[in-house]
């Protein structure tokens, strides 16, 4: 097995490389996001106004002053600044009179520009609030009346480990992807390649039965796919346990034994299903090139539910029955739940049953294809 570079690369090297790369990148992004970034702000009309200066400073420490509006807009458009603030003439005076207007321009396509705008909104709201409080005090009215309702935000208790990591949705996707691509890397050679080279004929003239040949290849494929998937899981465990990326796992890293067993229970039938798809397509193909073309097309269909699982958190569909019974998607959800330490055993059962049944049906198809004469060479 280790003599084949495709196996070594597909089952070991690439899963480890991808996991390390993803964890490092996500950790880096998380680190940046957790520290407030000060965007560059361009202002016009500040002209020594103290209040304008205080407001600007509250938004950002990186401030550039311009003289014309066109200059300010151009800087935001080109990305040199994230926000353009236009102070009206005699800013402090107009505020004192009431009805002053602060003109702000931002780039909606730039996330940092949106963040800067939100900061300006907060600063302006705070300024208005402070002004209102001052008026109330002067008029001997309790300033607390300006805030009759206060909002107190709390978080649900997260299980120790991956709860605080933004990787928790991405890791199941990577584990599922490698369960497929591990087998994908060798399957065209395993069946269509044997057909093309003529080694299939030497196998078929031996006393072993066709279904035994199909089963042997299916199990070999399952082994490589499972190894590939488990390698990615081990890589996640290693990165977490060694603390290689603390920002990717801010609340620490731990997976319980039941969670690991739940992951394994949902992965094994998934691997069986993937092996069934891969071997059937490869057996139906005329040669390696044809097999690779078909397999690439099939991979899009197979990977789509795993991709969709990334967006489930933005919908209210996570607990929908159809999600639990949809192949690949149900498995991704189960893996995520297991990583969070809150396995839904019913969902796990649904995922195992779906993948297991489809895998068994596809193995039957593969055996039928191996019994056909076209398995020797399709012309």
């Amino acid at each position, binding site marked *: 097995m280790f003599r084949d570079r495709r196996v070594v690369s597909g089952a070991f090297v690439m899963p480890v490389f991808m996991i390390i790369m993803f964890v490092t990148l996500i950790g880096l992004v998380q680190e940046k996001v957790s520290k407030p970034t000060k965007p560059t702000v361009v202002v016009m009309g500040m002209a020594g106004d103290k209040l304008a200066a205080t407001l600007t400073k509250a938004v950002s420490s990186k401030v550039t002053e311009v003289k014309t509006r066109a200059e300010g807009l151009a800087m935001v458009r080109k990305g040199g600044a994230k926000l353009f603030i236009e102070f009206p003439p005699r800013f402090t005076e107009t505020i004192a009179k009431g009805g002053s207007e602060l003109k702000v321009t931002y780039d909606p396509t730039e996330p940092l520009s949106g963040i800067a705008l939100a900061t300006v909104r907060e600063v302006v709201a705070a300024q208005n609030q402070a002004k209102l409080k001052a008026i109330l005090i002067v008029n001997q009215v309790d300033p607390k009346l300006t805030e009759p309702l206060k909002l107190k935000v709390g978080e649900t208790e997260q299980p120790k480990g991956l709860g605080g990591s933004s990787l928790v949705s991405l890791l199941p996707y990577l584990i599922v992807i490698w369960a497929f691509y591990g087998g994908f890397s060798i399957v065209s050679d395993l069946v269509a390649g044997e057909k093309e080279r003529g*080694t299939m*004929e030497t196998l078929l*003239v*031996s006393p*072993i039965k066709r279904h035994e040949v199909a089963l042997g290849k299916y199990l070999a494929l399952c082994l490589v796919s499972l190894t590939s998937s488990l390698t990615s899981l081990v890589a996640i465990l290693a990165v977490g346990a060694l603390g290689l990326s603390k920002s990717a796992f801010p609340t620490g890293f731990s997976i319980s034994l039941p969670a690991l067993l739940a992951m394994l229970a949902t992965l094994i039938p998934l691997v069986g299903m993937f092996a069934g798809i891969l071997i059937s397509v490869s057996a139906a193909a005329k040669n390696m090139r044809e097999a690779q073309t078909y397999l690439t097309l099939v991979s899009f269909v197979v990977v789509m539910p795993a991709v969709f699982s990334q967006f489930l958190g933005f919908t209210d569909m996570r607990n929908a029955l159809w999600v639990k019974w949809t192949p690949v998607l149900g498995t991704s959800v189960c893996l995520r739940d297991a990583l969070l330490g809150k396995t839904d055993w019913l969902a796990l059962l649904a995922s195992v049953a779906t993948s297991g049944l489809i895998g068994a049906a596809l193995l039957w198809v593969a055996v039928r294809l191996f019994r056909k*004469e076209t398995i020797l060479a399709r012309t």
Partner: protein
Amino acid sequence: MIKTESLSKHFQDPKKGWIRAVEDVSVEAQPGKVFGMLGVNGAGKTTFLRMLSTVISPTGGKAWVNGFDVLKEPERVRESIGFLSASTALYGRLTGEEVLEYFGGLFGLAGEELHSRIRSVSQALRLDEFAGQLCDKMSTGQKQRVSIARAILHDPPVLFFDEPTAGLDVVTSQTVMEFIESYRDAGKTIVFSTHIMSEAERICDHIAVIDQGRILAQGSKEDLMELTSQPTLEKSFLALVGYRREGAVA
């Protein structure tokens, strides 16, 4: 021994319709003799051998190999045969020795029996100097010697050779031919398909000329020359094939 009665194989081609790859072939091959199938490319030789080795099923007729019915006892038939063709290949990432161990296992050999057989065929085919090399690194001749070893490892009573010298150099071809002769002398039943007249003349005790799936004539080399009143096997062959293709023989 091998016997076929009206053995036929028809394929359905989406473009060409029904193709009669082998039609109504009745032959017998005896132990200690080389039975030759002589025909041009596409004549039906490979299809005939594949039916006998149970890799594909006949659409008509019957066949027995070593006393076993190819349709009813395919596993027993495969236990009894060794199959070698120019198109069969080896696993490039296995060494010659590993290939023999793997196929020996598939034929039910294990332990000391397997290793004793490997030693025996390695000695007979002079594999020792390169048996530890990966098959991908071997020369064509070395690969063909490993392929022969693979085919005879389980000491089958029947051997099928489908154009075994195609693409080989003179020296390697000579090794293959010498091996077939030695196996014939050991009392094995051998079916040898070829389109090379000199090989058929040298090695075959009985020759069946096949063209477009049908046996045109069969017998010893001398029988065929006498039948066609030609001085050589090559001319006899050409006379038979040409004669039929002109439409004189149905």
